[in-house]
């Protein structure tokens, strides 16, 4: 293996991935495993994380599943303990668990109750804090640093009219990433976040879905939605030595939407000089 490729190599590393049952979390767990890491797959639904762990084992890596409700800090503590019990250490904490809060087009802000608000904050933001807290303590005790990767969202920067709190929670994740990085840099722990734009969770299951997906992408420079597997290599980059001088940053993977977005694609001023 060349020295360059060695920097991306995760052999001998242990990673926890939350939200690993499906979609982005599943793809990132598979990718980290493919790059050499052993994985603890966590999510609420046992069936789904069991399947991700089983698929990782067919890649020849070690993997276990741990059903976890990340709204509960005690469960997050238990998750880190499980990784250590099983594999002796923790190197990578990938907090991907999250939940959307889209309302219908006719919803009003005052239809949102306290529980809805707290749920959005707990699953999307608090969970990242709980996992980072437990993971960083473990990593510091081990004495050789580690990486924490959070997952935010483009909606943290630009708003959706039908979502009331997801953007706020995810904006919190971006800021949390910075403050965690400042606090943990002395322990040689790097903290970064992935900021996805519109990414499909899985391949289209019908012709109709394929067409719908295609049309939604037409406003983006890339002219398509993202594929969940595309987050895999980015996760490998952030989890590995390849990003050794990178910390506190957000990496936007959105087909160029946030770079522009002032006008529909294909719009350009007519200028005669």
């Amino acid at each position, binding site marked *: *293996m*060349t*020295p*360059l*490729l060695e*920097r*991306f*190599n995760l052999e001998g590393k242990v990673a926890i991935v939350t939200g690993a049952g499906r979609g982005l979390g599943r*793809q990132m767990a*598979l*990718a980290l495993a*493919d*790059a*050499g890491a052993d994985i603890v797959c966590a999510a609420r639904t046992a069936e789904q994380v069991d399947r991700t762990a089983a*698929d990782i084992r067919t*890649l020849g890596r070690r993997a276990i599943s741990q059903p976890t409700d990340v709204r509960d800090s005690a469960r997050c503590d238990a998750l880190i303990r499980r990784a250590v019990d099983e594999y002796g250490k923790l190197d990578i904490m990938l907090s991907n668990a999250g939940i959307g809060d889209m309302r219908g087009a006719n919803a009003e802000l005052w239809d949102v109750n306290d529980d809805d608000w707290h749920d959005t904050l707990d699953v999307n933001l608090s969970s990242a804090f709980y996992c980072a807290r437990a993971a960083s303590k473990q990593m510091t005790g081990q004495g050789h640093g580690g990486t924490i990767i959070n997952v935010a969202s483009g909606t943290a920067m630009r708003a959706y009219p039908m979502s009331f709190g997801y953007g706020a929670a995810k904006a919190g994740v971006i800021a949390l990433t*910075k403050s965690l*990085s*400042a606090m943990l*840099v002395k322990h040689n722990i790097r903290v970064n976040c992935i900021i996805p*734009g519109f*990414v499909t969770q*899985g*391949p289209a299951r019908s012709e109709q879905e394929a067409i719908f997906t295609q049309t939604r992408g037409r406003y*983006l*420079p*890339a*002219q398509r939605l*993202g*594929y*969940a*597997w*595309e987050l*895999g*290599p*980015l996760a*490998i*980059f952030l989890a590995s*030595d*390849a*990003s*050794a*001088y*990178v*910390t*506190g*940053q957000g*990496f*936007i*993977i*959105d*087909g*160029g939407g*946030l*770079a*522009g977005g002032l006008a529909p*694609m294909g719009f*350009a001023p007519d200028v005669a000089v």
Partner: protein
Amino acid sequence: MQNEWGHVRSGLDAFDLTGKRALVIGAASAAGAATALALGEAGADVTVSSITNDGDEIMAVKRVQQQLAKLGRRSSTVATDVTLGQGVQVMVRQVAKGLGGIDILVNAPDLFLGKSADATTDVEWNKVMQVNLTGTFHACRAVGKEMLKQATGGRIINVTSVLGERAIANAAAYCAAQAGVLNLTRALATEWGPHGITVNAIAQGWMQHSAAIGNPDPAANQTVRFVPMKRAGAADELGPLAVYLASDSCGYITGQVMFVDGGLTTHL
């Protein structure tokens, strides 16, 4: 790896650049050399170029090309003055013919000027703009034309500086020029996205080779002590990101600025 998406390049294969043809402009600088060598190590064939027709600079570029040759890559050296658009056009056409096409462009022109704004002359301002910003535009335009003709997509990576996003005193011309490169990056990404060409920027923090840094030894340097990681970055810490951005796996990242700065821009 095979999964529900079909066969996807994952694991370390995701970063393989075998068969890709790259042009790195500004390969005499530490950042340019580091990215050229990283792309080569990842499997790309690389042509390296100077940013001026200065003999010493061309020799330095040749030394980088010799290191690429040792990696077993197809490589070549060219020279150009990035401030002259026509000349850049001719060079790029030549390189495209030589390599059979261009899949990856890295721009690393760098001309720093440490001078107070009130004392900066017209000539100095223009020079800094011409090399850093206009030079980048000349290269992007010329290579963009080739990529559009080829119609197989492409990757453009502009190696810039945190000073494009934030400022320090006594560097007004450089800050303005680098900021120009960042939004040029976004503009080109928006324009060429539908053609499968991604355009991104790597913004370097305080690196061992930074012209603005003075002594990079953190024991001696207040500026470096201000970096959360308490050290200047090494040029070879830029390479892996350039490789990822240049890869086929990175088709959904475009119009972005990525900071390799030890946390410099993230804290108060």
